[in-house]
């Protein structure tokens, strides 16, 4: 049996962690064409940097770093709208027509998406890592800040969500009261 090449190994690892690409791209781009461009840019950068990957560390941690670095740069780039490198009919990530979801889950995901969109590019990276169930030390390693700092920021973000949610409920209540 022949030994897998570097590209084969890369594709196996990429396939195992493809959800990271999808979740990062969805969190940084609302527009579908931008999202496809971003996925392509992330895959290319992961591939170009693959020779630097040290397999004593978890691939997912390294992949988060590359994907989030590319996403933040892409998000900040003013020229992203003029770049279309993948033909529209072909995408790196093929997604089933619709992911089956319950109505409650759909509502929660919509709420979550709105909340993520309000965050700046750095807090957005932090929230994605947190929601994906990473431990504080992993988040700290990916972002390059201390664990205590991660804890402080997550508490602040939780507090902000709580405040926004209360304000949202108050607003809804006052709208409902004025209608009745």
């Amino acid at each position, binding site marked *: 049996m022949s030994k897998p090449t570097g*590209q084969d190994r*890369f*594709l196996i690892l*990429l*396939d195992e962690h*493809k*959800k990271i690409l*999808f*979740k990062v791209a969805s969190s940084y781009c609302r527009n579908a064409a931008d999202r496809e461009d971003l996925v392509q*840019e992330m*895959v*290319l*950068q992961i591939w*170009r*940097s693959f020779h*630097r*990957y040290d397999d004593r560390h978890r691939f997912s941690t390294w992949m988060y*770093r*590359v994907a*989030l*670095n*590319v996403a*933040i*740069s892409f998000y*900040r*780039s*003013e*020229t992203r*709208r003029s*770049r279309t*490198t*993948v033909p529209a009919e*072909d*995408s*790196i*990530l*093929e*997604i*089933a027509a619709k*992911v*089956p979801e319950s109505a409650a*889950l759909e509502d*929660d*995901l919509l709420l*979550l998406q709105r*909340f993520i969109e309000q965050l*700046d590019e*750095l807090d957005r990276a932090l*929230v994605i890592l947190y*929601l*994906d*169930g990473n431990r504080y030390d992993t988040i700290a390693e*990916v972002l*390059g*800040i201390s664990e*205590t*700092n991660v804890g*402080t920021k997550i508490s602040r973000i*939780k507090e902000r*969500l709580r405040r926004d949610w209360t304000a949202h409920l108050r607003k809804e209540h006052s709208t409902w009261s004025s209608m009745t």
Partner: protein
Amino acid sequence: MELDDLKRSWEEYDRKLDASIRLNTRLLHGSVLGKAETALKRLSRLLLVDLLLSLGAAVWLGSFLWEHAAEARFLVPAVTLHLFVIALVIACIRQIVSISQVDYGAPIVAIQKRLELLQVERIRTTKWTLLLAPLVWTPLFIVTLKGLFGVDVYAAFGAVWLAANVVFGLLVIAVGVWISRRYAGRMERSSLMQRLLRDIAGHNLTAATAFLRSLSQFEDEESRAGLTTRCT
């Protein structure tokens, strides 16, 4: 609503994604991994072309200087141009070196800082190249006509014409700055033009320095939080 409630929904969604996402390995094998370039690689290639052109100009100007070292009227414009080109060469080399040191697998705060500093360097180079270009035009005209065609511009056009060109260059700079400040936000059809105008007007530099500031704050929040707690 708590972040942890949303986290549970995210986890549920994550499980469902397993069944619905597929990697298009045919596309990856066929074209993406083989040919396509990353944004940074494209920038690096453009800088390399810039560097080669600037080095060619520097060599040609060097030989012109050698030939006209005794004639101040050709020496002064040639030295001015040479300094301009050398500054461009240095800026290109600095940017190419910075790009080669970018490792996307490094921690986010460190890499974003490096990329933004690179952006600051690019903005400054573009801004000063575009702003100084109208002033460089006169020495370029003198040196090119003499070096390539043997024409003495001082004799052919006169000193007054040349002085008028310098004054015109200064006017072009002033008008260029005014246009960039007025129209930087209105060139939505051309991203390149918008970027150049925003570079000259200083908007892009302001945005880059603001992001560098937010990166530092993001990094230092722990100490700031500690300081606030101590103060209150």
